[in-house]
Each structure stands twice: as structure tokens, then as C-alpha cells.
């Protein structure tokens, strides 16, 4: 019974952590626009937090550069279970235009388990809200 209440409450109050692994800042700007009052992802109960130790939803943007790779896996392991990972933008999904460069190791799903993929370069704020909304159905 208590676990059901906890999972119900968790679904209605997910905390976001925004992790940039070497973007051009396009997806970052769109993700921040999704938090502003015009689009307002906080309607779903989300809140942006500053530490991965508080987070339920990890939003990953950017092709994973070689320097960010080690830190990325470390931050993923710091987030408590249960957690969902949302990969935002073409770079986080497969490298996008940076695929094939020797400075990046593209594809966030190569390093951690990714739950929701949001394609686009960059995706619209509504598309990001849609991705987070679909991620909440996996959060149990």
C-alpha cells in the first residue's frame, strides 16, 4: 500500500536534472524554454534541480565528448533509482553532424540505458515536454 502511494507521488512530482555532455547549446536553450512560463513543464510537477542525487529524470543533451564521457557515467550512477533518462536532440541520440569526429564518442545509449529518445536538431519545447511526458509513464 505504502509503495503504491510513493510511486503515485513520484509520478506527479518528478525532478529534472539537466546534463550537458558537449552541445552547441541549441538543445539547452530549447530545454530551458520548456521550463519558462510560456511552455511550462512545471505543470507536470517537474522542477529543475542542481544535483543528480535529487533527480528522477535525467535530461541529456549533446554528443558525448571524450572528456565528458567519464563524468557522464559517474553522474548517471549518482542518481538514485528509479530513474529515467531522456536523450534530447540528434547529437545525444547518434552524434548528429558530429558523428565520425575523433573527439566524440556519440550516442548516449552506448554508455547508459536511455528510456526516451527525442529527435530533432533542436527539438521544439513542445516536443521536449512530450518526451518528458512519455518518460513519466516509465517512472514507477
Amino acid at each position, binding site marked *: 500500500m505504502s509503495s503504491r502511494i510513493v510511486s503515485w507521488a513520484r509520478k506527479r512530482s518528478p525532478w529534472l536534472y539537466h546534463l550537458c555532455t558537449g552541445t552547441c547549446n541549441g538543445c539547452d536553450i530549447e530545454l530551458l524554454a520548456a521550463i519558462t512560463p510560456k511552455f511550462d513543464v512545471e505543470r507536470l510537477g517537474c522542477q529543475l534541480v542542481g544535483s543528480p542525487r535529487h533527480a528522477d529524470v535525467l535530461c541529456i543533451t549533446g554528443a558525448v565528448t571524450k572528456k565528458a564521457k567519464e563524468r557522464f557515467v559517474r553522474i548517471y550512477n549518482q542518481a538514485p533509482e528509479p530513474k529515467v533518462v531522456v536523450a534530447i536532440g*540528434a547529437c545525444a541520440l547518434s552524434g*548528429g553532424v558530429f558523428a565520425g569526429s575523433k573527439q566524440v564518442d556519440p550516442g548516449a545509449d552506448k554508455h547508459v540505458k536511455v*528510456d526516451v529518445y527525442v529527435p530533432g536538431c533542436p527539438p521544439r519545447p513542445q516536443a521536449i515536454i512530450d518526451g518528458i511526458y512519455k518518460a513519466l509513464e516509465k517512472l514507477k
Partner: protein
Amino acid sequence: MKVLKKALLNLFKKPITSQYPKIPSKTPKGFRGKHKIYFEKCTGCGLCGMLCPSNAIKLGKKIKKIKVKKLEHRVIIHPILSIDLSKCIFCGLCQDVCPVNAIKLTRKFDLADYHKTLIQK
């Protein structure tokens, strides 16, 4: 006094927040979203795959026989097989370059999914 008037007027206005997941949002004209491919129109020139900046378009290889004045010629054509949405950057170059309008970008934008999406026949 001006500020007070504006504040009072704002009390009766609708909130500007878009209620997106409940109410579908409109996209502007010319928005580049999900592709629509007309496979039967494709002539296999291979221009879209050559031009694609992120190599999202996968082309096949086929041998086509053409008859010109009783002589049979064999021509290699490259028909479009699939578009990988996880690689695509939605620049719209494939739509612009296609001579027979076999690729069209629609205004669909909510493409988030639990797996990497691939558009194919």
C-alpha cells in the same frame, strides 16, 4: 497609477501558458517535421543521400534495364530505403533537392519515442 491599471487588466486576461499535452499545439507554416516518403515516386537518382549532412538517408543499390533502340543498357540506380530520425537534423535539403518531390517534410513534431525511429517502407 499606470502600473496599477495594467495589473488590474491582466487579472481578466487568459494565461499565456500553452496547455500542450492536453491541447495539441499548432506549428507555423513551413515548419520542418517528420518526413513523408513517396517510395513509388522515387527514380533512384541518389541526390538526397549524397547531400544529407548527417548521413541519415540510406540508399539501396539496384540494376535497372533500359532499352534504347534495340540495345539493352544496364544502369545502377540508388532508390531511397529509409531515413534514420535519430541522425536527421531536419535541414530540409532532401526536400529541396528532390527532382520528383518524393520526400516531403510534414508539420508533425512530437516524435519522442521509447526506441530510435526509422522511417521505411
